[in-house]
């Protein structure tokens, strides 16, 4: 039974119909990506499910269920929860600032009982929801150019700066860029876009020289001249390129990637897993994974464009933007086109937090799809 705009509201709200309305092709692509990740983890562990592959797949299974549940959650609930989530995220970020746990020179974590928890991950979803809700109630003209826009600017700026101060440059860029993407999607005027780009270009050099930490600056300099630091960060980039390039067209075969198996490839199961995959499965495998990512992104954008609520549109597009940024930044880094920043390849890399965040985001995407005909309160003009 298919649901249409003509279906009666009660019809559409039946759980079975909602379940069937979930975009299963989209889900299949997510499963394929995560599965590919598990496969490579199995391989680089020397043909072993431990320590990574099994846990990766089990986690994915768990968050997949969470995503399905969220997909069937009325979009209205998302709408209601958006500001509180953002507020909680912001408070936690402030708490991190004062009582966060420090590891490897960065303060990113909060210890809640036995759990260690990274509030910046909450903010990745929070910023999307909050901005979507804000723009939901803003007229197109105001979204183009108005003093109202100082509010989303502040909403983006506060968490971005807090995260950057931890310091976690990768996440800060993700949050900031996602926010900016939503502003652009919401109809920001080209004039302001141009002004913003100009401002960033002017502010970037002094920012790099004076605000960044030494190690962050070093990473950027290393990226610009990898030969200067062959054993440090340059080593990572070079080894990644070697692993990737030596894979060739068809790859060396599962379990046969010498560079990843012998640990020449650093962080082979997390940030550099795409290089490991490229080495063992070649251009064919890596290209297929890139196509899967492209598929996920374009299906999500299509879902966004079919939504009848502005909140759903912007929320879905924001999640997609985050996801696309992950893929582009990590891909560029692995292929030696960007500095080494700690941004994993979503769903492919080992790591529970990012996976959870991304899948919650996709929960919103699927919920937008399932509830695409649902009108959310005509909130135009009402900010809260």
């Amino acid at each position, binding site marked *: 039974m298919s649901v*249409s*705009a*003509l279906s009666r509201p009660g019809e559409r709200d039946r759980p079975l119909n909602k379940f069937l309305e979930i975009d299963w092709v989209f889900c299949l692509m997510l499963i394929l990506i995560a599965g590919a990740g598990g496969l490579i983890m199995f391989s680089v562990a020397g043909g072993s499910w431990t320590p990574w592959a099994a846990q990766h797949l089990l986690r994915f299974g768990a968050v997949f269920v969470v995503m399905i549940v969220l997909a069937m959650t009325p979009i209205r609930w998302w709408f209601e929860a958006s500001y509180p989530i953002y507020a909680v995220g912001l408070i936690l970020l402030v708490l991190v600032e004062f009582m966060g746990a420090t590891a490897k020179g960065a303060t990113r974590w909060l210890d809640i009982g036995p759990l260690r928890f990274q509030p910046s991950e909450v903010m990745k979803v929070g910023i999307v929801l909050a901005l979507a809700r804000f723009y939901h109630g803003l*007229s*197109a003209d105001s*979204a183009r150019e108005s003093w109202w826009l100082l509010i989303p600017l502040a909403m983006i700026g506060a968490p971005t700066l807090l995260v950057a101060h931890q310091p976690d440059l990768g996440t800060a860029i993700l949050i900031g860029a996602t926010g900016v*993407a939503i502003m*652009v*999607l*919401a*109809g920001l005027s080209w004039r302001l876009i141009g002004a913003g780009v100009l401002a960033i270009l002017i502010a970037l050099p002094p920012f790099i020289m004076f605000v960044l930490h030494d190690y962050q600056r070093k990473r950027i300099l290393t990226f610009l001249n990898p030969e200067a630091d062959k054993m440090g960060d340059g080593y990572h980039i070079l*080894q990644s*390129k*070697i*692993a*990737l*390039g*030596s*894979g*060739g*067209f068809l790859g060396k075969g599962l379990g046969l990637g*010498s*560079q990843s198996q*012998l*640990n*020449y490839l650093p962080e082979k199961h997390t940030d550099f897993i795409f290089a490991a995959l*490229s080495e063992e499965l*070649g*251009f064919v495998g*890596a*290209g297929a994974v*890139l196509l899967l*990512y*492209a598929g996920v*992104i*374009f299906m999500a*954008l299509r879902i*966004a*464009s*079919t939504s*009848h609520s*502005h909140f759903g*549109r*912007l929320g879905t*597009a924001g999640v997609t*933007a985050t996801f*696309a940024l992950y*893929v*582009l930044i990590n*891909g*560029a880094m692995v*292929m030696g*086109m960007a500095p080494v920043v700690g941004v994993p390849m979503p769903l492919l890399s080992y790591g529970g937090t990012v996976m959870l965040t991304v899948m919650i985001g996709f929960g919103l995407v699927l919920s937008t799809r399932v509830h695409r005909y649902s*009108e959310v309160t005509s909130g135009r003009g009402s900010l809260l």
Partner: protein
Amino acid sequence: MSEPSIFFSEVNQRQGGFNRRAFLLGGITGLGLGILGGRLAILQAVEAQRYEKLAASNQFNFRLVPPPRGRVLDRHGVVLASNRPNFRLMVAREKETDVDGLVRNLCELVPIPEDRVPRLIKDIKRAAPKAPVPVMEDMTWEEFSRVNVRAPELPGVTAEMAEVRVYPWGGAFAHVVGYVAKVNSDDIDAIKEKGEPVGPLFYNPGFRIGKQGIEKAFDERLRGEAGGKKVEVDARGRVVAEDIGGDIPARPGDEIQLTLDADVQQRALEVFGEDSGGAVVMDIRTGDILCMASAPSFDANRFVRGLTGPEYRALANYERKPLLDKCMLGVYPPGSTFKPVTAMACLEYGINPEERVHCGGAWRIGNTTMRCHKTHGSQNLHDAIKNSCDIYFYTMSLRLGPDRIAAAAKALGFGQTFDIGLKGGQSKGLVPSTAWKAEYYKTRNPRNTKWFAGETPSYAIGQGALLVNALQLCVATARLANARKALNPRLIRSIGGVEQPKGSDVPDLPFKKENLDYVRSGMAAVAAAGGTAFRASQLGLGDILMAGKTGTAQVRGYKGIDRKNTGKPWRFRDHGLFIAFAPFDDPRYAISVIVEHGQGGSIAAAPKAREIMRVALLKDPELRARIEKPLPAPDLSEGEEFEDGDNLRDAAAAAAGEAPPPGPMVEE
């Protein structure tokens, strides 16, 4: 979108704007992904080969495989220098290695002396990261396996089997074969100066370079070429696999066979004991050097391991100079062993050998009285050689003049070095002549450049400025005994299986055949009844006798008539010399023996020569057959003298009326 959207007039400005922007951002994302894909294609398709090479250089490493050093053999294939396995323990430091803890752990595994530990820790810390430092050599098999079992928990520790040079004869060949030792910076500089590349082999902790003798002269031939073992290593440098097919095998060094005979050489060292001097034995048919022993010697194996300071000082400061090669580098006045040379000069000059000179025990020249060791009476040349009469040669020397003596001496091999394959290590000695004196004193003392007649008599009896070494003495003896060829000594029999030219492929001596035969017979007479070396010539080998000439060389001026040596400090005693060939009737081997401060040729040198010559003769199969052949019937009682007990047994068997067993006897 299949659904009609007219119901939703909220399809408004905002949705249209959003769709345009979403399309735009989607396009940018698509562009980004396209760039990633393109980059992927460039890396994996266009540049794949380059990265494959880089990957291989990451993954594979060649571990140096040192080549086995070529062996050095004697003429019968007896090993003089070889390699033995050595279990070596090495530590390669990594940046984060806790060196002190590591060494402490190692001390529990293998017995490292407590006093070496601080030095060891310093060495390891000072070495470059990943450069292996040898910690212990010659571990037992148990220690070796214990370390190997524990190696995974001891980062950087490797126990490997390597080869180490060994000289099974210890000191017997230390001067000729030489030794190998650790490479020092001078060696590296010398190689660089030659313009040759200094390969990684030179920095291998087990590598040794030839420092002396054959080991030095043929270092490159003996060394071989290092190979590589292709291994797969992980990022931390640990070997995870070996790729047998990818190995580059090491090329072993060439084998060098010498003309030396280990038994003769060993006997020479034995008979010298703590006496100082040298002995050279040559085959007069081929020029092969059978023995070239310098005593006292030193254990060459010590140098391979590396001498400690006190060890080296003990060797270097010992009065009898064990490190000096007395056969080639030690030069001595030849004394009476030079008389055959002077005799040769007389004959060539045309002096009638039957001319007689009266020896009254003393001889005057100018204001000086020179003495003979005995009063010989009337002497012809033959008698003079046989009796070693100084006065005969004094008299004749005035007629000869120094240059004729020098010419004969040079023709017989004095005053020159021989190309026996060793680089350097030979001293020319000195053969005086008028030209030499003029040249020598031109700068030192211009008023003394003229040769005085009074210098010639002592020259004629092998004293004065004349200096020779044991090798030259032996060559001269061999040339006289050969009586035809200007034999060259040969030390290297073959290199890598390639036979080297014989020492007999040379022109004849520039002497008349009858003159050579005359001198040879004169020397033979020394061994005959009544000769000065009659006793020493008895070899105990049946009718095989040794023809020789003793010599006693002064090392100090005799004041008055005090020619006694006894009771003098060692370094003031006379040198004892002896030259000989045997068998005297059909010469095969020539020998020269010099005993430093041995007090006299017949006391110190001749008995040694006799023992050494016996071994040389007994090892010659043809001569052995001759020795074992019983003498004619009337001399049955002399059977006792035979070395071989068989003859006695045969005699006993014959006495018991049994048929003698088949053997050499049957031929008679």
